[in-house]
């Protein structure tokens, strides 16, 4: 089984969704640190190690959870940018959205998303999602060396 990621980067602008996800990860006893940023620009700043995110204290994430609807730069734009980067392009990205519109799902895969999840309806389902996410991405999947 693969090594556990040290950091999960959560890109989510909705405070309530971010809170539910962070709570769910806590309940699922995910040992990784969840770093939450609220928009695409901040995600790019974190990933490039721009201030205030120095790499020593803020290591690259083992996986990214990326909301699609974000202020300014959308999740799609962040994904497209990421897959174009020399070193960062291999980081697995799981897209998150409120509704699985086929157009959005297809676009996400076309841009190189590893997986696409729909945000659950209630806290209990968020915990289920966090458990399945933990078991698959943090235990079974082998992350690339970035």
């Amino acid at each position, binding site marked *: 089984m693969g090594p556990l990621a040290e950091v999960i980067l959560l890109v989510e602008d909705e405070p309530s969704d971010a809170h539910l996800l962070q709570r769910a990860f806590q309940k699922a006893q995910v040992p990784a640190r969840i770093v939450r940023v609220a928009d695409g620009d901040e995600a790019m700043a974190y990933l490039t190690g721009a201030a205030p995110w120095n790499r020593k204290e803020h290591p690259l994430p083992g996986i990214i959870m990326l909301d699609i609807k974000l202020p300014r730069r959308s999740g799609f734009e962040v994904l497209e940018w990421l897959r174009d980067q020399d070193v960062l*392009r291999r980081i697995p990205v799981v897209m998150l959205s409120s509704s699985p519109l086929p157009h959005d799902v297809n676009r996400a*895969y076309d841009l190189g998303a590893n*997986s*696409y999840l729909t945000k659950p309806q209630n806290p209990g389902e968020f915990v289920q*999602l966090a458990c399945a996410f933990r*078991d*698959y991405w943090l235990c079974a999947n082998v992350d*690339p060396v970035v």
Partner: protein
Amino acid sequence: MTDKRSEPGIILLVEDEPTDARLLMRAFQRAGVQNPVRHLPRGDTALAYLRGLPPWDNRSEYPLPILMILDLKLPGMTGLELLCWLRQQRQLRRIPVLIFTSEKDESYMGPAYDAGANSYLLKPADSAEIERVVDLIKNYWLALNEAPLVVGPAT
């Protein structure tokens, strides 16, 4: 969540080791996975299946997969070559591909992710572990993940 259609999509397993293939197929059965698993032992044969070449030219009988489990070391065409080809096909490129291999080395893993692998799994050592991995595939890829729409070329 994706609605469950009456006909569950097929899983394409491309694996040349007969023992690994048998253990995987049995694990899918034991896990109660409804999706039919089609096993092909060669890379070039899998390519022919995906292209819908004879004897697989009848798409209703040989449908496109909703998920692929792909070994890397394969006769005919490597898993990496097949993946690279797949990601360039306008109609097939979105099919999620899980690499399933014994190759731990970065020289295999990096290029697989670069070529567009959705996930990279190491072949477990024993059958109990294979059943565990299959359970995870079922719970994640078949239950939670939103699958892309894959429309094949008209045949």
